[in-house]
C-alpha cells in the first residue's frame, strides 16, 4: 500500500509539472489544431480521389486526423516527455540521486509519465478533438462503452510509448549523449505510429511490418478501437504484449546500467 501511495504521489507530481506551464499548453493546443486542419484538408483531397482508402470512409479518415492530433502528446509520439530529463540526469550524473532513493527507477518514471499523459489528454487532447468535431463531419461513436474501450487502448499505448522511451533514455548510460538515439526514436515514432498517415494505408510488406511494430499501439490501435474497426481482444493483447516485452527489456537494461554505474562509477 505504501508503495502504491508513493507512485500515486509521483504521478500527481508528473501531472502538476506540466499543468504549471499554461501558456505552453495553450500554444500547443493551437499548434495541434492548425496541424489538424492541414492534415484534414490533405485527407479530404486524398479520400475524394481514393474513397475507402485503407478501409476508412472519409468521415472515419477525418476522425483519424483529429484523434491523432488529440493523442499526439498523450502517447508522446515525438518524444519530449520524461526521457529528455532522464538522459540529462544520466549525462550529468544526477542519476546517482535517483539510485540511492528507496524507489524503483522504472516505476518512478512510469508513474511520472502516466501523470504527464493524463494531463496531456485533458490539456492537449480535448480541445483539438472538440474543434475537429465541431467543424468537420466525424464518425465518432456515442456509446460510452466505446469511449471507455478507447481510453483503455490509450492507456496501453501510453505504457508502450513509455517503455520505448525508457529504453531510448537508458542508451545514454553507454553513449553518454542520448540525442542521436532520441532522434532516431523520434523519426520512428512519427513514421510508424500512424501519426501522419494511417498504417492501414501503407502498402504490402511495409504495411505488414509497421502494423506489427510497437509504435502502432500508440495511435493506430486506440483510434481503430474507437472507430470500431479493430478486433478488440486482439488489439488489447497486441498492445499488452508489446508493453510487457518492452518493460521487461527496460528492466534488463536498467539492471545492466545500474551494475555498470555501481561497478564503474558515474
Amino acid at each position: 500500500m505504501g508503495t502504491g501511495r508513493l507512485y500515486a504521489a509521483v504521478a500527481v507530481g508528473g501531472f502538476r509539472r506540466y499543468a504549471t506551464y499554461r501558456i505552453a499548453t495553450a500554444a500547443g493546443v493551437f499548434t495541434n489544431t492548425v496541424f489538424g486542419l492541414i492534415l484534414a484538408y490533405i485527407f479530404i483531397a486524398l479520400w475524394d480521389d481514393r474513397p475507402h482508402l485503407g478501409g476508412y470512409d472519409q468521415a472515419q479518415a477525418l476522425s483519424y486526423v483529429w484523434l491523432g492530433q488529440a493523442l499526439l502528446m498523450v502517447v508522446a509520439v515525438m518524444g519530449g516527455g520524461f526521457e529528455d530529463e532522464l538522459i540529462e540526469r544520466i549525462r550529468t550524473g544526477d542519476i546517482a540521486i535517483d539510485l540511492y532513493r528507496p524507489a524503483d527507477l522504472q516505476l518512478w518514471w512510469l508513474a511520472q509519465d502516466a501523470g504527464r499523459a493524463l494531463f496531456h489528454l485533458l490539456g492537449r487532447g480535448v480541445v483539438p478533438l472538440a474543434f475537429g468535431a465541431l467543424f468537420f463531419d466525424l464518425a465518432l461513436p456515442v456509446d460510452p462503452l466505446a469511449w471507455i474501450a478507447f481510453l483503455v487502448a490509450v492507456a496501453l499505448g501510453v505504457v508502450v510509448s513509455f517503455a520505448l522511451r525508457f529504453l531510448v533514455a537508458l542508451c545514454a548510460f553507454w553513449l553518454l549523449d542520448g540525442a542521436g538515439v532520441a532522434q532516431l526514436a523520434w523519426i520512428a515514432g512519427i513514421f510508424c505510429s500512424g501519426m501522419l498517415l494511417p498504417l492501414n494505408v501503407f502498402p504490402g510488406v511495409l504495411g505488414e511490418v509497421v502494423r506489427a511494430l510497437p509504435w502502432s499501439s500508440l495511435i493506430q490501435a486506440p483510434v481503430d478501437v474507437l472507430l470500431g474497426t479493430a478486433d478488440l481482444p486482439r488489439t488489447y493483447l497486441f498492445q499488452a504484449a508489446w508493453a510487457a516485452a518492452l518493460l521487461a527489456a527496460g528492466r534488463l537494461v536498467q539492471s545492466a546500467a545500474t551494475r555498470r554505474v555501481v561497478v564503474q562509477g558515474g
Partner: protein
Amino acid sequence: MDNEDADLILLDRVEKVFEVRRRTGFLRAERRQVRAVDSLSFSVRRGEMVGYIGPNGAGKSTTVKMLTGILTPSGGRLRVAGIDPSRERTRLARRIGVVFGQRTTLWWDLPLIDSYRLMHRMYRIPDGRYRENLDRCVELLDLGDLLDVPVRQLSLGQRMRGDIAAALLHDPEVLYLDEPTIGLDVISKARVREFLRDLNAERGTTVLLTTHDLTDIEQLCRRVMVIDHGRLVYDGSPAGLHEVGESERTLVVDLERELPPIEAEPARVVKVEGPRQWLAFPASESAAPLVARIAARYPLVDLSVREPDIEAVISRMYAGRAVS
C-alpha cells in the same frame, strides 16, 4: 559482530579500482586501472561530526558513493549502521540522508512542498513525525515563505536549505553532506552551518561533511580526515591540520611601480606580476608586523591577505610526508 553503537560508519581496508579505457588508435583501446580509494580504514562514532576533505580527485566522492551503496567497493569491508551498503542499498537509504551540494533532489518545476510530500511517501514517514520534522526544518531553515515557490525560482542558498530539509524529514541517523556551502553567500553559509551544528548537538545526528571550505570544518567539526590519492593522510583536530601542513598565508602587495622581489623575512616572494607581488608566510605568524615592515621600506599602494586554502595545506602536507 558489528558494534553498531560505537561505530556507525566503519571502513576496513576499503578499495575502489576503476578500469579506464583509453583509445589509443582506431578500434584499439588501452585498459588502465585507476585506484580511486586505496586501502582506506576509518570509523565514525554515533553522534560525531566529521570533516572529510581532500583535493579534487582524491577519492572523497567515491567514498561517499560507496557509503550510500551507489558504488560497490572492489575490496575491503564497509558497514554503515551495521548494513553493507551495496548489498542493501534500499534498506540503508531509509536510515541515511544525503545532500550533494551541486545536485538537487528537489522537483525542479514544482513548489518545494510537493517534493516534501514525495519524501513523505517515499520514506514512509508516519504522518505525525513528518509534520513535526517538516515544521522544525521550516522554522530553523527559514523555509516558511518558500514552500509554495517552484524550486526553479529559488536562489542557490534557498535551494540548498530546501535540499537539506528534504534529506532530514525521515530522521536519518547519518547525514552525508557533499559541499553543502558551495556557491553560497556569507549569510547563507552561516545559516546552514548553524543549522548543522544544532542538528548534531540536539538530535545527535552523525554528520560526514566533505567540503573545500576550510571554514566549514573549523566551525563545525572537532575531527577532520584528509584523503589524498585515495589514502587517509590525516585524522585529527582541525587545528592540528595547519601545524602538520605547515600552511602558509599569502600577502598580495601592490607597489607604486615594478620593483625587484621584496625582501621581508619570514615571507618570501612567490610570484611577481608588474607592480604586484605575492608573498607567502607561515600561517602561525601575524601579518601586522610584516605589513608594517614592508610599508616602511617600499612604496606600498594596496594589499590583501589570503588565508591558506585547503588544497595548498593538503598538497604541502602530502609533499612533507613524502620527504620525511
